[in-house]
């Protein structure tokens, strides 16, 4: 308040030197902050530009309508990888969201004491799990059950859900905490049981935030390569069955195109860049969809 008062009262003006120094500091800070912001954008812009300029070479109909079956050297497409990414991501969402959101509801609405603290601690630990460890876990589980060398989409989804669940739990937890207690109390005061309060008041109020959290989780896992390389594998052909045989995803497609080049090096590089561009576009699209969904779900003010 004192500052405002001083600014408004030239009668008790400060010596000119102080005002000028303030202006200088302000200008310097503005320039520095803007500059750092632009600096932070440079890698992002460079990445987008590189992916777009190099990915456009193969951004054609064939890329989106063909698999790699029977392709030697140039040509071919990544439809099998695009479909595989969609299937595995969808299965991961189905595994992670119910578990993650209910865990968050437990932590906020029911949990207390040592058990709650343990769950919170374990979720924090899970957040830091390296993705390859999640892949090894899924590999070990499915190898023990189904024998060595097995690959399947559902194993990939299991590995990815280990990475996605903690993200969903943490973000949903924050969102549920933001719901004002007055809303809960009002609901209880009307005699509504606790579970109905959660389903009808707490979750709808925070749903847009939860959806945003889920989308962050998806963005976290959609680019994962290592665990999928291990448990979902690589194949040239379409596979719609999550429970049998290998499924290619976009990150694994990019990796194998880059790593295993034939004599016509440019053809493999072009496919890898285009797949990278598609993956970036996929994440962008998911973000747009999430905003739409959040808007549709947001409670209507009357």
């Amino acid at each position, binding site marked *: 308040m004192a500052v405002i008062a001083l600014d408004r009262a030239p009668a008790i003006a400060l010596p000119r030197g102080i005002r000028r120094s303030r202006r200088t500091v302000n200008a310097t800070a503005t320039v520095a902050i803007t500059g750092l912001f632009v600096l932070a954008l440079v890698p992002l812009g460079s990445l987008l530009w590189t992916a777009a300029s190099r990915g456009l070479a193969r951004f054609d109909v*064939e890329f*989106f*309508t*063909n*698999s790699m*079956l*029977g*392709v*030697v*050297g*140039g*040509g*071919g497409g990544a*439809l*099998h990888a*695009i*479909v595989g990414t*969609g*299937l595995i*991501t*969808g299965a991961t*969402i*189905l595994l992670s*969201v*119910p578990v993650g*959101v209910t865990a968050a509801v437990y932590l906020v609405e029911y949990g207390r004491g040592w058990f709650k603290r343990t769950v919170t601690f374990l979720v924090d630990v899970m957040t830091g799990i390296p993705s390859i460890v999640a892949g090894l876990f899924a590999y070990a589980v499915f190898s023990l059950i189904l*024998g*060595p*060398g*097995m*690959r399947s989409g559902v194993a990939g989804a299991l590995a990815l859900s280990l990475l996605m669940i903690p993200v969903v739990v943490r973000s949903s937890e924050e969102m549920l905490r933001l719901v004002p207690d007055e809303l809960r109390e009002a609901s209880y005061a009307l005699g509504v049981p606790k579970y109905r309060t959660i*389903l*009808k008041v707490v*979750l*709808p109020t925070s*749903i847009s935030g*939860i*959806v945003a959290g*889920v989308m962050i989780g998806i963005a976290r896992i959609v680019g994962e390569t290592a665990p999928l390389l291990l448990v979902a*594998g*690589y*194949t*040239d*052909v*379409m*596979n*719609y*069955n999550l429970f049998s*045989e*290998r499924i290619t995803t976009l990150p694994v497609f990019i990796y194998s195109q*880059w*790593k*295993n*080049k*034939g*004599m016509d*090096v440019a053809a493999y590089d072009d496919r890898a860049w285009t797949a990278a561009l598609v993956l970036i576009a996929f994440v962008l699209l998911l973000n747009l*969809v999430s905003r739409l*969904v959040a808007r549709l*779900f947001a409670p209507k003010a009357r």
Partner: protein
Amino acid sequence: MRSRLLPTVGAAALTAALALSGCAANESGPDPSSTPSDTSGDSTAESPQTDPTDDGGAAVSLSGTLNGGGASSQGPAQEAWRAGFSGLNPGVTVNYDPTGSGDGRKAFSEGGLAFAGSDSAFGPDEIAAGGFGSCADGSGLIEVPVYISPIAVGFNLPGVDSLNLDAATVASIFTGQITAWNDPAIVEQNDGTDLPDLAITAVHRADSSGTTANFTDYLDQASGGVWTEGSVEDWPDSLQGEAAESTSGVAETIVGTEGAIGYLDASRAAGAMGTAAIKVGENYVSYSPAAAAAAVGGSTFQSDRSAGDVVVDIDRTIDSGEVYPLILISYLIGCETYADPSQGALVKGYLEYVASPEGQAEAAANAGSAPITGDPNVEPKVAAAIASIQ
């Protein structure tokens, strides 16, 4: 019940997206980049299909999924073989993980893969110990050399496309005893070539590699004692030089570094960099598929193995004719008898295609390898070994 809607809507949106993209799939339609007989990518297609190849004799109908993996050197060739084989057998999906020879042999032993590709064969004692996961109890192994590739000594010197080097000079370069391109040892072998006063950067593989094993084996046998590290898959730590990951990494490092020299699969050196002709006897021989095949023809088979276990002892010191002894031989490894007969039929069909003239020609076109077909020493043994698969 709004909370239940969230996953449902997410799944519905994804399903819709998938359905749309799935509809656009034209794997079942004419695929412009595939052979005409190449139809669906659906691995579960059960439609009876007559195998139009005549090298198998009877008409065979194959379907199912065949998983293999191992040597990355075979990667480009495997790509050509997969494409050719699935063109002839639309019901079969073949997968090959080029994760490395050691990984491939291990996964095959554990039963995770039906066949393995490897730059080095299993030892006789390993085969005798048995316990291979995909094989029937007591089954031996068949190991066939199907991929013969010259290893090029590639370099980056502006204006120089070819150099003559003998094995001792190559060994001296990679051990750091020769450090400049105008060293007398190089100059005296290359009359008329203007060699600059430029430091040599020797590039080697950072990862464990069959290419390194064959390169060091060549230096060990042919350099007359200059190379003292033996034949090793991992580059010796005691030696200086620049390390690069995988064949691609070596190629990129050489192309990007003036004065660099390295060893790599010849398919990746062709046209991208200068290559050395190595001294054989009194002549200098450039790499070529024919010269590489000649090196195999002049070599002997290891004698302590069964009939289906065709392992070549490469003689790197051959000193006559157009022979390029700096080669890599990669094997396909499978069971004599499979625990699952349908897998046995698939492996047999696939290996028959790989070893056939068509398969070898495909590999030569896509990977620059030397065909084994036409070599009276190798071809019949390989064919007999594959025919014995059950």
